Every structure is written in structure tokens, then in C-alpha cells.
């Protein structure tokens, strides 16, 4: 077994893409970053809890959604248990967006895209937008007058964007399929990517107060 050094001896298979991928992961995402046991002092604030609460709500959304998908879209109209599970689904979605927006406010005001975290911020924005579309397809998949009302009113707006040619809000099968399969998988994968990105670079440092000379103490000045 070789001892660690700055220039380790090449091992068999190092020229392969799997070897390159392994070295990249070891360099960019060591386990001490992925599963840290300690956090910087500035993480001791409730503002940093919003993202975790949003993920917790998302777990409830997906869990209740799996149950609803198994019993079908009409189940909650005819079953008390179905109505209860549907309510969990609905209210966990409300909590998800409530805390996603709070998370967004917190990260916006601390300019969390600093120090090479731009893609982390952008992935968060994409999660928010995809989440909105997921919520919308859920509303039009309820199989009730509410869903019909929303779909009929939305179709002209969607058609005006040109997306109506492939995104037909009056097509229940398309909306339901997108809602229960395509978008939940997309959101989940993006959230996993978002968390991994946060762990790769750590939590962004707070913005330093203004220096006496008028220049802001850039956090990037600190190694």
C-alpha cells in the first residue's frame, strides 16, 4: 500500500476515465467535506436552517406523492385516508415553497454566489423554477373543478408563450405523467446536486462589515 504524498506513484488503471473520475472526486469532494462533523461559527444562525427544512418538506412531498401515485389520482376523492394523504401532500408543498423562498431570501442577502458558488446559486434557481412547474402540474392533475378551472384559464397564457404546442395543460395524461414522474425525479436530482455543491465549497462566509477606509473587507481575502 502506497503512502500518501504530493505526487503518488501511478496505480494500475490511472489512465482510465474511472480513475480520473475517482481522483477528481477525491480532490473536489473528500468525505470530510461531504459529511462534516463541525461547521464554521457563522453557521450558528437560524437562517441556515431554512434549506434543511425545505428538504425535509420535500421528503414529505415525495413520500405522500408516492402513496398517491400508487392509489391513483381519483383516490382522494372517495377515501378519507386518501384525503388525509392528499392533505399531507398539499401542505408539505406549501411548507416546501414557504421555506424555499425564505432560503432564497437568506442566500440573496448574503450574496451566496460569491467565491466560486455561482453554479450552486443557479442550480437553486432552477430548482425553484422546476418546483413551480411541478406545483402547477399538480394543481391541474387534481381531477376536480379546481383543476379544470386552472387548466382552462392557463391554456391561453401557455399557448401565448408557444409552449402550448408540446405542453398541453388540458391533456390530463401528459400533466399527470409529468407531475408524478419527470419533474419529481428532476427536482430530487437537482436538490442532491445542490447539496453536493454546497458541501464541495462549504457554506458561504458572511459579508464583512465596511472597513474604515471605505473598502469592504472582501471575504475572498481570507484564505
Amino acid at each position, binding site marked *: 500500500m502506497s503512502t500518501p504524498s504530493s505526487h503518488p506513484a501511478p496505480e494500475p488503471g490511472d489512465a482510465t476515465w474511472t480513475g480520473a473520475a475517482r481522483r477528481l472526486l477525491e480532490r473536489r469532494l473528500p468525505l470530510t*467535506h461531504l459529511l462534516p462533523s*463541525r461547521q464554521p461559527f457563522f453557521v450558528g444562525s437560524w437562517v441556515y436552517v431554512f434549506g434543511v427544512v425545505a428538504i425535509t418538506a420535500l421528503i414529505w412531498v415525495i413520500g405522500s406523492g408516492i402513496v398517491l401515485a400508487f392509489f391513483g389520482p381519483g383516490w382522494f376523492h372517495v377515501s378519507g385516508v386518501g384525503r388525509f394523504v392528499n392533505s399531507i401532500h398539499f401542505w408539505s408543498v406549501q411548507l416546501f415553497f414557504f421555506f424555499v423562498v*425564505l432560503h432564497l431570501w437568506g442566500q440573496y442577502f448574503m450574496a451566496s454566489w460569491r467565491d466560486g458558488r455561482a453554479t450552486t446559486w443557479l442550480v437553486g434557481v432552477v430548482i425553484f423554477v422546476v418546483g413551480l412547474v411541478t406545483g402547477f402540474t399538480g394543481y391541474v392533475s387534481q381531477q376536480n373543478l379546481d383543476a379544470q378551472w386552472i387548466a382552462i384559464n392557463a391554456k391561453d397564457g401557455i399557448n401565448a408563450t408557444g409552449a402550448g404546442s408540446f405542453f398541453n395543460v388540458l391533456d390530463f395524461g401528459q400533466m399527470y405523467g409529468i407531475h408524478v414522474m419527470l419533474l419529481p425525479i428532476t427536482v430530487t436530482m437537482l436538490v442532491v446536486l445542490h447539496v453536493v455543491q454546497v458541501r464541495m465549497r462549504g457554506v458561504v*462566509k458572511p459579508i464583512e462589515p465596511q472597513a474604515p477606509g471605505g473598502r469592504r473587507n472582501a471575504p475572498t481575502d481570507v484564505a
Partner: protein
Amino acid sequence: MDTPATYVQLGFLVISVPNLLVILGMVLVFLAALFAPFPAHHGIETDHDEHPE
């Protein structure tokens, strides 16, 4: 839930009372998160050590 919501009109802004309450609730929770003391935890560093880059 089967009755229409009450709406508030402030100039060109029109918003339902339930939506307004949700937004006000979010603002309150955000301010509370900024100023509420966070419980001490052994996993939080007490010095200014950085996350290892």
C-alpha cells in the same frame, strides 16, 4: 374553502388576504431567524476557523 377570498387593494396592487398573510408570515419568520438566539451546539466552531477549501 368554497367561498371566494377577500381581496385587499393598495393602488395597483391587488392581493388576497390569505396570500398577504402568508407573505407577512414569511417576513416575520425571516426576521425571527435573524434575531433569535441559536442554541449552542458542539458541532459549531467557536473560533473563526474556515471550512477547509
